[in-house]
C-alpha cells in the first residue's frame, strides 16, 4: 500500500513538473499563437542554470556555487527568460512555420552546446549531485517523496494561479485581442511585437522553472534528457488537454503522462527485458499516433479553449 502511495506521489511529481512546462507553452501557443518547437531547449537552459547554481564545486567545470535551491529556481527562470528574449528578438517576426523550424533549430543547438561544452555543462556526463529539496528526509523515502510532492504541487498551483490571473488581466486581454484581430489591436495603440515578445519570454521563464524543478528533484541531468522527444511530449500534453486553457494544460500533462507510464508498464509486461529498447520505441509510436488522431478527431482537446478571458464578463455559458 505504501509502495503504491510512493509510486503515486512520484508519478504526480513528474506529471506536475511537466504541467508547469505545459503552462509555459500555453502562454506562448494557447494565448499568443507562437509556434515554439524548441520547448526542450528552454527547459534545458533552466535545468542547467539551476544545476550550475546549486551544485557543489567540481573540478574542470564551471559553476558549483552551492546556492540554495530557491536561488537555483530563480536563476533558472532568469536564464531561460533571457534566452527566450534573445531568441524572440531575432525570430518572432518570422512567419509561423519558419518560427517552428527556427525554434526547433535552437533546441538542437542548445542540446549540442550542453553535449559538447564540457567545461560548462559537464558534456555527455551531465551534472550530478544536484541538491534535492528536503534532502534531510531522504532516509525515509515515503516522507521524502510526499514532501517533494507538496513542494512541486504548491509550485504548480502558484504558477497556475499566477498565469490565470495574468490571462484575465488587461495584459491577457491584449493577447486575446491580438489573436482575434491584430490590426484592430494595433490601431488601439497596442504594440503586437512587444506583447508577443513578453509572452514568449514569460513562457520561456516558466519552462525554465520546470526544468529547475525536474533537475532538483531527480538530482542528475544529462543532455539526453532534452531531445526533441521532450518537446513532442509537452505538445501532445497541451493539445490533448486543450490549448488556450490553463486547466487543460495541467490536465493534459497528467493524462498524457499517465498514458505514457501505463504504456511503459504494458511494454515491460509484454516484452522480455532484452527487447525493452525496442518496446520503448513502440511507446513513442503509440504517443505519436495518438497525437495525430487527437488532431483529426478532437483538435480542441479535452477541455477546449476558454471563450471569455475577462473576469468582468460572466463566463456562465460562454465556455466552449
Amino acid at each position: 500500500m505504501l509502495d503504491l502511495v510512493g509510486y503515486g506521489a512520484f508519478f504526480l511529481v513528474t506529471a506536475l513538473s511537466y504541467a508547469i512546462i505545459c503552462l509555459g507553452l500555453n502562454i506562448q501557443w494557447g494565448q499568443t499563437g507562437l509556434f515554439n518547437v524548441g520547448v526542450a531547449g528552454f527547459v534545458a537552459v533552466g535545468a542547467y542554470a539551476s544545476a550550475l547554481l546549486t551544485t557543489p564545486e567540481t573540478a574542470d567545470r564551471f559553476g558549483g556555487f552551492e546556492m540554495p535551491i530557491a536561488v537555483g529556481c530563480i536563476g533558472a527562470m532568469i536564464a531561460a527568460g533571457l534566452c527566450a528574449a534573445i531568441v524572440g528578438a531575432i525570430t518572432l517576426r518570422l512567419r509561423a512555420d519558419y518560427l517552428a523550424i527556427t525554434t526547433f533549430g535552437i533546441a538542437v543547438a542548445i542540446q549540442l552546446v550542453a553535449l559538447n561544452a564540457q567545461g560548462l555543462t559537464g558534456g555527455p556526463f551531465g551534472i550530478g549531485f544536484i541538491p534535492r529539496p528536503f534532502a534531510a528526509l531522504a532516509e525515509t523515502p515515503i516522507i521524502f517523496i510526499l514532501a517533494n510532492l507538496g513542494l512541486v504541487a504548491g509550485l504548480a498551483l502558484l504558477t497556475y494561479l499566477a498565469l490565470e490571473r495574468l490571462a484575465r488581466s488587461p495584459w491577457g486581454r491584449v493577447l486575446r485581442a491580438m489573436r482575434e484581430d491584430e490590426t484592430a489591436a494595433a490601431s488601439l495603440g497596442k504594440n503586437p511585437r512587444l506583447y508577443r515578445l513578453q509572452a514568449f519570454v514569460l513562457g520561456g521563464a516558466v519552462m525554465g522553472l520546470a526544468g529547475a524543478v525536474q533537475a532538483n528533484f531527480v538530482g542528475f541531468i544529462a543532455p539526453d534528457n532534452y531531445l526533441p522527444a521532450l518537446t513532442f511530449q509537452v505538445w501532445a500534453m497541451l493539445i490533448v488537454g486543450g490549448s488556450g486553457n490553463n486547466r487543460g494544460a495541467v490536465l493534459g500533462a497528467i493524462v498524457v503522462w499517465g498514458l505514457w507510464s501505463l504504456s511503459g508498464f504494458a511494454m515491460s509486461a509484454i516484452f522480455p527485458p532484452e527487447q525493452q529498447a525496442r518496446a520503448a520505441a513502440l511507446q513513442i509510436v503509440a504517443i505519436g499516433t495518438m497525437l495525430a488522431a487527437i488532431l483529426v478527431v478532437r483538435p480542441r482537446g479535452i477541455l477546449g479553449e476558454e471563450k471569455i478571458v475577462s473576469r468582468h464578463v460572466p463566463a456562465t455559458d460562454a465556455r466552449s
Partner: protein
Amino acid sequence: MSLQFLADGLVMGAMIGLGAIGLTLTYSILRFANFTHGDFISWGAYLTLTLVSVIGATIPQGAAPIGALSFGWPVVAAGLVAMVLTGLLALALDLLLFSRLRRRGSAIVLVIASFGASLALRSLLEFIFTSRPAYFSREIQVALPILPGVRLTPDQLSTLGLTAVLVAAMHLLLTRSHIGRAMRATSENPTLARVVGIDVAQVVRTTWLIGGALACAAGVMLGLTVQIRPYMGFDLLLPLFAAAILGGIGSVPGAVIGGLIVGLAEAAAVQLIGANYRAAVAFLLILAVLLVKPTGIFGARA
C-alpha cells in the same frame, strides 16, 4: 590544407539537395513545413534494405557488384521499387492525416501533426529494425584520386551522377510536362489553378509521390555512402530545411544549390571548427537566410 573536405561536402550536399527537392515541392504546393520528410528518407533506405534481403534470399548465388561500385543490380532494382513504395507511403500519410487537417484550415496544426507523424514513423523503424546501424555492403571501397589531394569512392561518384540525372529529370518534368506546369501553377495560386481547370487533387497526389520517391533515392545513397539507421533522415531535417529555405521555397534548382551550399558549409565547419557543432551549421544558415533574405536565392515570394 587539403581540399578533400570540399569533395565530401559536395557529396553530402548532393544528397541533401535531393531530399530538399521533395521538401520544397510539398512546402510550396501544400503550404506547410513537413517535418515527416526526413523520415521518408529513412523509410526509403530501410525499404530498399529489406527488398535487397528479399532478393538476396531468392537468388542463392548472389549478384556481383556493378563495375567498381559496391552494389549490384539487386540494390538498383530494390531501390526503384522502394522509390515507388516510399511515394505510396507519403501518399498514404497524406490521405490518413494531412488531407483531413487541410480541410480544417490551420497550417500550424498540419505542422504539429507532421511532427507527431515523424516521431511515430521514426520510432516504428526503430522498433522493427532496432537502432543498430545497418549497411548495404560490408565491403570497404578504395577511394580514387580525382584531383590532387582529393579522393572519392566510386559510390560517392555515382551519388553525384545520380543526383545530377534526377535533378535534370525533375527540371524537365516541371518545365516541359503538363503535370509539371500544373504543379507550378498550383504552387503559385491554388484557387486560380482550379479555375483554369487544373485537378489540384491530382497535383497534390503527384507531389507526394515525387517527394517520397526522391527522399527514398536520397536515403539509398546515404545508406550506401554512410550507413542506415532510424534517425538518419531526422538528423538531416535541419539541413533539408536550410537547403529549401536558402534556395527559395518552391524552386527545384534552388533546393539543389541550397543543398550543395549546406553540404559545403557543414564540411567546411567540420574542417575548421571540428565535428561537434556540425548540426548547428544548418541552423545558423537558416537564421542568416531568414534575417537577410527570407525569400532565398531563387524564391519569388516569402
